[in-house]
């Protein structure tokens, strides 16, 4: 997230090819007026917009991400917009962990006929982000801290675990897991909360240990997290073979990153 002058937010809007992109086109052809802060990236389906893209956008200094798809039931690909909803649920939590206000990410529906609605949503979103302010306007130290966490979030979003859980949400909510247990939305949300927080923390620990070996206490201090949580995460990383003990300093074990070759 580079530091940026000025107060005009820079926003990206992902539009699906079939509904919202046509809606945006209609707004244009009908000469509707809306703020010029938004840049559209066309995708075939809103279900293509993964958490990874969204966190990358923030790392690149954008101030807001709008994802527009077809109305529920109208998806050209039957269920792509529901997958978009599942992914946004996870992305929101990633942003919470990073400390970026999750109102900077909005998912909404616009049909090909709704040029007016497109213009309204964009206007509302732009104004909302304007009141939240631009991200780059923060103090440089804060910017550095947010960037550090954003990078961890990006690694988490690319990681197998989070992607697997996000992908399984629909199945868990309808057919159940492999033991046939069906999850309520509330249970799924709690599960996502836990996994996203764990993954982002693990990635932050790995990033820190990349620089030099450290003890759990040191890591907890620099991440401003409770030591017991960090310890749990550290042990899990060790079990996975991603960190190892590098020695003991005083009475604290020191951990270092182990670079594993992919199998």
């Amino acid at each position, binding site marked *: 997230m*580079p530091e940026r002058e000025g107060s*005009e937010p*820079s926003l*990206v809007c992902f539009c699906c*090819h*079939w*509904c919202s992109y*046509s809606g945006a*086109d209609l707004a244009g*052809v009908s000469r509707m*007026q*809306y*703020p*010029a*802060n*938004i*840049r*559209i*990236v066309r*995708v*075939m*389906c809103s*279900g*293509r*917009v*993964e958490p*990874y*893209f969204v966190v*990358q*956008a923030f790392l*690149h*200094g*954008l101030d807001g991400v709008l994802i527009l798809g077809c109305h529920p*039931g*109208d998806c*050209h*690909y*039957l*269920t*792509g917009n529901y*997958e978009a909803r599942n*992914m946004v649920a996870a992305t929101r939590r990633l942003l919470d962990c990073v400390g970026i206000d999750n109102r900077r990410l909005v998912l909404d529906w616009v*049909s*090909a*006929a*709704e040029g007016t609605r497109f213009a309204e949503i964009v206007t509302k979103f732009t104004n909302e982000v304007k009141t939240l302010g631009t991200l780059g306007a923060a103090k440089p130290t804060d910017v550095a801290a947010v960037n550090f966490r954003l990078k961890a979030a990006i690694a988490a979003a*690319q990681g*197998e*675990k989070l*992607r*697997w859980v*996000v*992908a*399984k949400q*629909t*199945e868990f909510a309808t057919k159940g897991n492999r033991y046939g247990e069906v999850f309520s939305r509330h249970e799924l949300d709690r599960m996502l909360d836990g996994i996203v927080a764990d993954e982002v923390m693990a990635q932050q620990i790995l990033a820190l240990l990349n620089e030099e070996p450290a003890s759990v206490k040191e890591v907890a201090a620099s991440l401003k997290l409770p030591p017991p949580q960090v310890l749990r995460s550290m042990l899990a990383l060790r079990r996975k073979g991603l960190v190892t003990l590098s020695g003991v300093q005083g009475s604290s074990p020191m951990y270092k990153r182990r670079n594993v070759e992919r199998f």
Partner: protein
Amino acid sequence: MRDRESANRKARDLLRMAVAKARLLGPVAPLTFEPKRSCLIVGGGVAGMVSALSVAEMGFEVNLVEKAGELGGTARRILNTLNGQDVQAYLDALTGTVREHPLIRVHLDAEVIESRGYVGDFTSKIAVRGDGKITEVGHGATIIATGAVEAKPQEYLYGQDSRVLTLLELERDVAAGNTRVCGVQTAVMIQCVGSRDDERRLCSRVCCSQSLRSALKLRELNPQMDIYVLYRDMMSYGLMEDRYREAAEKGVKFIRYELADKPRVTAVEEEGRSVLRVMVRESALDRLHMIDADVVALAVGVVAGQDNREVSRLFKVPLDEDGFFLEAHMKLRPVDFATDGIFLCGTAHYPKHLSDTIAQAQAAAGKAAAILCKKKIETGVEVAFVNAEECIGCGICELLCPFKAIEVVSIDQGDRAHVISASCKGCGVCSSHCPRRAIGMHSFGDDQILTQITAMATGKVEQYA
């Protein structure tokens, strides 16, 4: 907004983003195949029949599906056009030719219940009501011509007093020589009923000419009759203006009213005569008129058919806010849908005169034939592909694919996902979720999307990472 500087900046960014993406596009291996040389047309009104005939005349087979028991649609209820052309004679000739054409198969009392595939290679199921017979047809192109219907009025005593009619009902009675309308002293027509208000904003385009036509016809049948047309704006565009003038010269009285002060109709007894009393404020002179009428005809306009929603789901094509079908681009692609190989024409699109319907039906037929006549069709280029080295065969993609276009197969190295390119529609949901990030998308890969974000964020075209 109205801010040239930022609009310009946006334009430059969009261009930069497009260049950034274009730079990363790779060659794709298109799927080539021979199209099915047949066209499916849904709706057997004038639009459906005209397009069926033009497609068949170009040498292609047509399946024409009509849900009613006869062909013709709304035009069955229109006697003449404003220029005096005989609609029924035209319709009978058209229906005859369509029914006899060796390449056109007409399915009456039938509806399409399922449709899948893509341009050049669609498959649909047609169900006939009654015997429940289901026919499966293959087709290279599809034309949607499901038409529209006359609106049902909610006001001016319609349905409570039999002397209040819609214009089409008036026309029917005039044709039948019904003295209830032909022999009366006073007739009133009210325009824009249930239209151009907050609830239904659109103008139906055909009603003004309908009223002019009926007024002239009544005048011809009965020169003594007092005829009034209560209007908000007379849309007698083009050469129809001549008929408007003719009607005015022949003594038809035109009275303008405002939406905020609509006419009022009540049934009263006046000197032993039972009349419909119409009170209307002429807006220019601000004068209240009282007309005692024997018959009141309502210009109720055209509304989208109730089937449209279902048809739109079936073929995955969009509707506009009023429930009519929405073309891909109002100027550049007026008879196309965004989905290749599906076209539209007639009043399914929006209300229009027969002449416009016919012209549009021919346009749609031309577009369909342009596909059917191709030696080879190329499609399915923007599909998913699997990087077999990264894939671990977990099957998440198989689970999520809405089109069963990806499956896990066993190869020597173990289980691997495999994309069935012909079925893949390129949504990218598999790519978004693959835990190993082993699925790429042609034209919508991670790098091709992220480079656009970098381009807009940095103002430079460079690698995204």
